[in-house]
């Protein structure tokens, strides 16, 4: 999707908006999604940046000191307050029961999590995950459920030996008149070297955006039964060089 973005158009419009701080903010957000950003991420530099600067701010923003918080679970799972924590939420027009049931069947997660190739349930608690990595490679890891409240919460962490040490939770909370609030928290320890680059690529320059898009696709799938797309629709000639 990223490569389709017409940054030139957005920038042109941005300049039209003339100096408003609000606009600068909006356009910065647009530009953060540029192919250049993705390239940076692939190079692994983003991870270093995030490791150096992202930690405390994100940690505080997530407010994980609250005792009843799902963040506590991820923190405990990682054995302390380490790594990067991101939190995203979406409201879905559906019951906690049906959303929980779909998510709990991990083997269905690749239907809306773009970077996943497959998830295989090994037993009630453990599962094996395969995800896309740069240059046609894959990364794999095992995970286990560390906390579970039916129709409310699933908490998991990667098992020892995984390249990517991470923990996460998804919480389903009824929102009267609106359905269910689905809140995901992910905490992970940025590894170094090759694996670090892979993780950076996996999660993109902005991991919260990856999770946000995953949650959006989850909502679309749950509410409409499909994920809207324009991939494969007809287009006219895109360059005057091809025009006859």
């Amino acid at each position: 999707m990223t490569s389709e973005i017409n940054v030139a158009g957005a920038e042109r419009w941005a300049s039209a908006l003339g100096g408003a701080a609000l606009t600068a903010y909006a356009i910065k957000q647009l530009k953060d999604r540029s192919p250049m950003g993705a390239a940076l991420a692939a190079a692994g530099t983003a991870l270093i940046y995030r490791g150096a600067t992202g930690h405390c701010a994100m940690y505080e923003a997530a407010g994980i000191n609250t005792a009843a918080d799902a963040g506590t679970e991820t923190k405990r799972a990682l054995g302390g307050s380490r790594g990067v924590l991101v939190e995203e939420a979406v409201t879905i027009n559906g019951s906690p029961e049906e959303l929980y049931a779909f998510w709990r069947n991990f083997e269905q997660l690749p239907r809306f999590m773009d970077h996943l190739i497959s998830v295989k349930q090994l037993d009630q608690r453990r599962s094996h995950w395969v995800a896309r990595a740069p240059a046609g490679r894959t990364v794999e890891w095992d995970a286990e459920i560390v906390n579970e409240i039916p129709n409310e919460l699933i908490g998991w962490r990667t098992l020892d030996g995984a390249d990517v040490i991470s923990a996460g939770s998804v919480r389903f909370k009824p929102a009267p008149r609106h359905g269910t609030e689905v809140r995901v928290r992910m905490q992970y320890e940025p590894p170094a070297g090759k694996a670090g680059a892979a993780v950076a690529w996996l999660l993109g320059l902005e991991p919260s955006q990856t999770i946000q898009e995953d949650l959006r696709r989850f909502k679309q799938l749950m509410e409409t039964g499909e994920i809207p797309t324009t991939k494969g629709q007809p287009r006219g000639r895109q360059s005057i060089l091809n025009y006859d």
Partner: protein
Amino acid sequence: MKALVWHATNDVRVERVPDPTILNPRDAIVKVTSTAICGSDLHLLDGFIPTMQAGDILGHEFMGEVVEVGHENTRLKVGDRVVVPFTIACGRCFFCEKQLWSLCDNSNPNAWMAEKLYGYTTSGLFGYSRLTGGYAGGQAQYARVPFADVGPMKVPDSLTDEQVLFLSDIFPTGYMAAENCEIKQGDVIAVWGCGPVGQMAIRSALLLGADRVLAIDDVPDRLRMAAEGGAETINFDQESVFERVKILTGGRGPDACIDAVGLEAHGSTLDAYIDKAKTAAFLATDRPNALRQAIHACRKGGIVSIPGVYGGFLDKIPFGAAFQKGLTFKMGQTHVMKYMKPLLDRIERGDIDPSFVITHRLPLDDAPNAYKIFKEKRDHCIKVVLKPHTETVH
């Protein structure tokens, strides 16, 4: 198939492109029998809407015959004759369930772009830039319709294409604008802009019981059509709009004002020239001249209803006047699906025949020329209908 393709500002061409195919289970493919050029297509032609890409197929007012349906679509079948609403909606989210179809959560594949600019995404639209989904439009021989079990409405064979085509956009848009005026007995409604949406708004306001409608424009053909529809007209080139509106309403102002112009308003007042200079110099995006007048002229406690399209940031809006006079604002893209059936009923009953607005009927092959005629308002042009399956005869 053939389709009208956007290449750059003031550069649209008819080209051969691949036929559309079913991409999702609830899709349908429609063979387009009639399609129209909308005033908001001119914003694309003029380069006022960001995130267009060379190669985009335009068009959001169309109808035709269903030629293929996805396996999850149980509402349509091959051979159905349907009008397609310009808004794309899933039918199952919080907003669709409340009939706020143009605010659908799920139909914009580029939702994140809209979120960055507007906070939250609104619905996908046909042929209207990446920002609203990047869906290929209906100024083509065939079109793919997503969530086709929600939007397209079957129409009876007793009505012609021209009688029902405008249920896709301008009739519901003009009608919603009038409905937003909450018209009560004795109300006077003023309408800025007598293009196709303004024309529909004028007639809708009268259908909804307005006592009188004042219509404001500077194009004689449009003013004539407004007068034929029952409006009292004001030519802003020849008289002061505010003074005239005030006199015609006994000094109190219209009960509600409709801005059927939108972001590319032109005018002959000082602020209009400043707007033009600013947008030319990229210091503002939209030119809200008509909106300013509507706010200024509206009576105390009145309603300003805005069907005209805005996309970005507006300069020098008289917010003080709006606040001090306690105005109510109602606006937004049309919730087309809410109005299609009731308005079809009105057409069948003979309350209105929306085809009155058509001045030009041309083959799709002539679309680039049709855009030009429409934009420059040449040859008395008010509304163009294109026929995608008619060959040009030279």
